[in-house]
């Protein structure tokens, strides 16, 4: 549409995530490393799912619309499952790495707690997922035209940006909840994460009715945000302390070793 729309959508989609990165992660190199590794793991899962998707599309009947839609749904479900599988894989890897790091380090306490790792890896997944969702759309938003000449909705760009924002934050919250559930062996928590991820992905099939896809996504986002807050050790009691940045015991200030 123009440069204004491009920057607007970029900042909407990545603003909060970049702010989180700058204020909480950028100063600690270890966190940065684990963030990037997390992003890489997400990328590998995408590669695998796209490989499967590509092969199935090639051998399918390209002319049948129902087959193509069915393949699309299959592709989305497979991708979600693979992403969660890779999240679990990353969790196992991090557990092993943490032991090794502890052995190597001179201090008694671990340099980074598993909760911090959960947050960082979730954000890494989110960054990469957001990038792949929206960068293509952003590059087309630079041109002079906007969506609509064939009758599509005019709010395509901004809806995509908001959806991407939601996905990035959701990945972060899912990471926290997932790791916490794995630590506590609460498998229903794992299942909830997977199912909510599936719901968010599949609800995008109702596009272009953007209210039908964005509203459920944001509802799930707020639910997951609250759950992650609780997993991280917050409660109604220290909510006020947290929001005014007065709680010295909180997560990132004072990590508790496991």
């Amino acid at each position: 549409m123009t440069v204004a729309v491009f920057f607007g959508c970029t900042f909407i989609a990545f603003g909060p995530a970049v702010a989180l990165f700058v204020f909480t992660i950028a100063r600690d190199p270890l966190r940065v490393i684990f963030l990037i590794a997390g992003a890489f793991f997400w990328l590998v899962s995408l590669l695998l799912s796209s490989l499967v998707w590509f092969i199935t599309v090639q051998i399918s009947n390209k002319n049948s619309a129902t087959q193509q839609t069915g393949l699309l749904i299959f592709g989305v479900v497979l991708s979600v499952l693979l992403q969660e599988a890779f999240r679990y894989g990353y969790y196992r890897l991090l557990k092993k790495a943490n032991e090794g790091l502890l052995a190597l380090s001179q201090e008694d306490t671990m340099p980074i707690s598993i909760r911090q790792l959960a947050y960082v890896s979730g954000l890494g997944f989110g960054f990469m997922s957001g990038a792949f969702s929206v960068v293509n759309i952003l590059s087309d938003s630079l041109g002079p035209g906007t969506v609509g000449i064939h009758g599509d909705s005019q709010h395509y760009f901004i809806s995509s940006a908001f959806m991407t924002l939601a996905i990035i934050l959701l990945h972060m919250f899912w990471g926290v909840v997932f790791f916490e559930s794995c630590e506590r062996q609460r498998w229903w928590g794992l299942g909830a994460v997977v199912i909510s991820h599936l719901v968010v992905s599949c609800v995008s099939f109702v596009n272009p009715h953007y209210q039908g896809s964005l509203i459920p996504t944001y509802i799930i986002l707020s639910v997951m945000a609250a759950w992650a807050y609780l997993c991280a050790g917050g409660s109604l009691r220290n909510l006020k302390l947290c929001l005014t940045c007065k709680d010295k015991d909180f997560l990132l200030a004072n990590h508790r070793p496991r």
Partner: protein
Amino acid sequence: SSVEQKIYVVLNETVPCVRLLNATHQIGCQSSISGDTGVLHVLETESDLDWILSSGPHPPYMVIMETAFFNRSVMMRMKNSSRVAGVAVIISKTGLADNFSPHTTCPNQNTGVYSESYGSDLANCNGTVWNPLGNGLSYEDFSFPVFALKDENQTQVLRKCYEDHNQRVNGSAPQYPLCAMQLFSHMHAVTDTVTCMRRTDLQNRFSINPEVLCDPLSDFNVWTSTRPLNNSAKGHAADESVVIAATRLDGRSFFWEQAPAAEGTVSGIVTLLATIQALYPVTQEAPPPRNIFFSFFQGEAFDYIGSSKMVYDMEKNDFVIDMNNVHSMLEIGQVGLRSGRSLWMHSDPVSRQNKSVDTEVSEMMSRMQSAAAGLKLTVDHPSVSQPLPPSSFQRFLRARRIPGLVLADHNTSFTNRYYESMYDDAENLNVTYPPGLTPDEQLVYETDAAKSLAEVATLVARSLYLQAGGEEKNLNNITADPKIVSHMTSTNTHTHTLTLTLSLSLSLSPSLSLSLSHTHRHMTSSHTPPLSLSLSLSLSLTHTHVTRFVQYILANLTGTVTNLTESQCQNPSELSTENKDLFSYFWVSGPASVNGTREPFCVRASVRLSKAVSPAFELLEYGSRNYSTWTESRWKSIRARIFLVASRELEVMQPALVELTETKQKNICIS
């Protein structure tokens, strides 16, 4: 990408207007390098014009111009306005004015023969204004792109987009989102030929990857003669006295590569080809004393490129004949709109002040009149003080005062009301068929236009024979066949372009058949090979160039079939019976036989091409006043697309939203 497909509708058929430069000026159209975007508005009424130029709230506008509004006054108002991003002109016959000629009123006024030193009272059309209906639009410089919309379906897409989004409701402005169009036609050359060639030379000398900015207009002239001339012997040909019969091969219009030029050029080409067809057999049986030299000149619209080059070569002794060999000249101008009236023989009053030239010209006229006596047409001469119309003969006169005539269907100014425009097509020539004919039947039907041109061809052939000293008793054998003429002027009635289609299934020379279908087009700079990097030389693979077309028809009409093999045909000098200096050899495919196969064979003809590029580029005088200095700019991409644009408010709102979310971030607990 799929998002791009949601946003843009790409228009496939683009007919741009490109930039041309000469020694002092640039003409044509230019867009900015990243295209010009504007909100669509259809210009149908005067109030639309007002909306675009002053009252519309969403400038700049991309104007979709109905045919009736494509005239000088509207285009100049657009040119002077800053609210116009570009123009797309609908090319159709509905709403077409009675006349439209974007050429100047006095074609080629600076490079003809009339100047301060030669007939100064006749120079600059002081005597007769040849193209009074000309509005000079082709020679204006526009800073926005102008495209032509020839495809009806595409125009319909644009109209629908306009009606859906941009239509005014009850006089109030339309609401966003609005339909917009973006045109890309960025030209690399600026200012004039001198600047452009200087920059090109700098590029060629110092750059690793030289970027050529413009190309001189160049192509080839086609010539042949009744007695073969030795092509390797340049300069004066001994014992040769030659009568030149000439016409032009090119045309032009406001837009690039669109030049039907039916009355302006094709009438002349077809007449001369039919003349050759009529004359050739007789000149072989009963050869006249003088040689007859037929020549088709390219690039005459752009200050006589082809003819000035040939005269230059003749003067430099770089051609098969020189000016001393030339006895007289007969040129065929615009001869298609005779409508049963007489033809006019134009001559040059200044050279006729010389007694010997005057006698010879009068004798030419009387020969022509005696040849016309046996036919159903009349020839007349205009008043003696009238100058020559724009013609290649003027360039020969600049070199030497030879006697000559220019044959035309107009007495004073042109009868062609669409001179050098896109509307000078078959309809302008009154080529009409009775209803219910298939295309194959149309090919052989003898239209009135074909019969008229055939008569002119017969007249010219007989006059040339007499002029060359032939005997009167052979005149009755010289007749142009209307069937051949109608082959050459059959039309594609859907598009109203004159397509010269020649499929000689019922042909003269028994076993030769060429089928070439071609839309007449103007000269392009085609000296570089087809797959060159410069995308401006779009040599369309579906259309054969008119030069090749005429060359092969001439080979058909005047050549003889030989039984050489393909390799012998390509290297005939190895054989003692064949003479590469006197003839050219063409390997052609034969007529289609019953089961569709074709037997190719070798044709020997004395048809040659000679380079038609302005001498100014050989002499490196890019600012020359004597020769043509026309060049055509190069470009990278020419395309067009339509899409919707959103309001500025929506665009601005998005960063505001971002501000809101960012400030919230800072309050989250981080330490």
